[in-house]
């Protein structure tokens, strides 16, 4: 659902280059994007309301929201959201730590890259879901195997992002560091880290998207709680409104967590925003 790499500049505020109509444009542009889904939803609502369709397989928005409200009232919703968020958070944390460490080592140290990278690339070629049976055998069907699966999904984009970012740091900028006699830790802190940060944030966002994808997979395989469980339960009991409700909540949570990363990184990437503005996004 949100596995594509969101380009940083595009999600930052729209351009202010055209001075006069900018305020209108700022609000009009996202609204324009909402037009199509809203029209479709309202249209479908109308179709069901007029009785042209019973909306059993494709429930109208009102019924989806009623389901969400119902789940919320009973406390079920919070329980499922907490379970899913917890899995994603743990898996994301492990994946990010491992991906960052190994990616940094591979990017910084060419011997490690030669040792490590071929293996990682080979593992990456395996569709990660193929690991599921093995993880279940090794780790059981409970939390551990789910968290590991999510962590695996998060690991690869973060690893690749960090390694690639370090490898593509502009040699000319590193040389500026050298002329000021930076070395070792100072070079990392004052040159490499800031240079790598934008790509790192992108890789975190991609990783998070994969984490959400994999949590669905993990919970579909077997869980007694979680949004994925709601999906499965909805399917087995023939409750499409519940499935759609879970999907809507996945979308909201996915967008929200992605936005959190964006907001947390924004103060460090202000210099890039300036770039986006100058380009006229």
């Amino acid at each position, binding site marked *: 659902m949100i596995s594509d790499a969101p380009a940083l500049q595009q999600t930052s505020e729209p351009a202010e280059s055209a001075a006069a109509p900018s305020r209108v444009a700022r609000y009009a542009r996202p609204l324009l994007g909402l037009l199509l889904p809203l029209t479709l939803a309202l249209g479908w609502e109308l179709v069901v309301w007029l009785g042209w369709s019973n909306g059993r397989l494709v429930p109208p928005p009102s019924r989806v929201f009623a389901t969400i409200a119902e789940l919320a009232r009973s406390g079920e919703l919070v329980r499922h959201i907490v379970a899913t968020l917890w899995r994603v958070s743990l898996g994301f944390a492990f994946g990010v730590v491992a991906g960052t460490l190994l990616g940094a080592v591979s990017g910084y140290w060419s011997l490690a890259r030669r040792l490590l990278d071929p293996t990682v690339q080979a593992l990456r070629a395996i569709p990660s879901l193929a690991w599921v049976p093995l993880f279940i055998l090794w780790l059981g069907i409970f939390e551990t195997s789910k968290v590991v699966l999510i962590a695996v999904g998060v690991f690869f984009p973060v690893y690749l992002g960090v390694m690639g970012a370090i490898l593509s740091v502009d040699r*000319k*900028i590193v*040389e*500026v560091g*050298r*002329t*000021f*006699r930076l070395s070792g830790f*100072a070079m990392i802190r*004052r*040159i490499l880290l*800031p*240079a790598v*940060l934008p790509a790192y944030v992108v890789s975190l966002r991609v990783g998070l998207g994969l984490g959400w994808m994999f949590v669905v997979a993990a919970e579909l395989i077997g869980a007694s709680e979680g949004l994925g469980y709601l999906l499965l339960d909805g399917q087995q009991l023939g409750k499409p409104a519940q499935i759609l409700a879970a999907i809507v909540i996945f979308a909201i949570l996915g967008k929200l967590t992605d936005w959190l990363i964006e907001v947390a990184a924004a103060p*460090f990437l*202000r*210099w*890039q925003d*300036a*770039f986006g503005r*100058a380009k006229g996004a």
Partner: protein
Amino acid sequence: MLALDRVSKTYPNGVAALARFSAEIRQGEIIAIIGGSGCGKSTLLRAIAGLDRASSGTVTLDNEAIASPHAKIGIIFQEPRLLPWLSVADNIGFGLADLAAPERREKVARALERVGLADKAQAWPRELSGGQAQRVAIARALVPQPEVLLLDEPFSALDAFTRRDLQDHLLDLWADTRPTLILVTHDVDEAVVLADRVLVMRPRPGRLFDQIEINLARPRDRHSPLFENFKRSVLTSLDRSLDRSVPDRDATQGPGQAMWW
């Protein structure tokens, strides 16, 4: 004094970029290095900066051998190479990390004032024009007060008007603390307007071909007949340096003996 003693550089791919380059440069002198493309000018500058090690020969500054970047030697490249994540002020203060914050701020403010960019202190490098960015690079290199400032074609990416402006500005800044300037350039006009002494290099392998003293008082009038004369002699020397039938001058000969004019 900066002493270059038979500095040679052969790259791992076998290219002899620099061969036995010797020169003695007084403190505060302005040297222009001119020569065809690929004759080892950048290689020489990088060896002096301590960025690349010479294959043989030595660079010594006040009797101290230079093998790695040195606090007394600053360098400015053809591109400004500003750090895009730092504001203009922080870029200028980049080399002052050892100073206490108030002192650093004060030095940076003064440098900003000096290069005429006080209003850009909080701007990002992206927001600067090419000329402004190069001014920031000059300020960044000068603010730690190096004894030697190396400049590798610093103005060649700028338009003619901005280039002249920055040449004058560089001289202005130089007068503050009078560091040694070693400036690589393609531009004869630039060499003659700035330098006390022009070193002409010739390629394959890169080596010193000729030296021309520019005995002209500053500020120099680019349109005076004397200026034209110096330009002509530099151009003549450059032409001869590219003419393979002209032999190298005897290396033992003293500086400034341009014999053919």
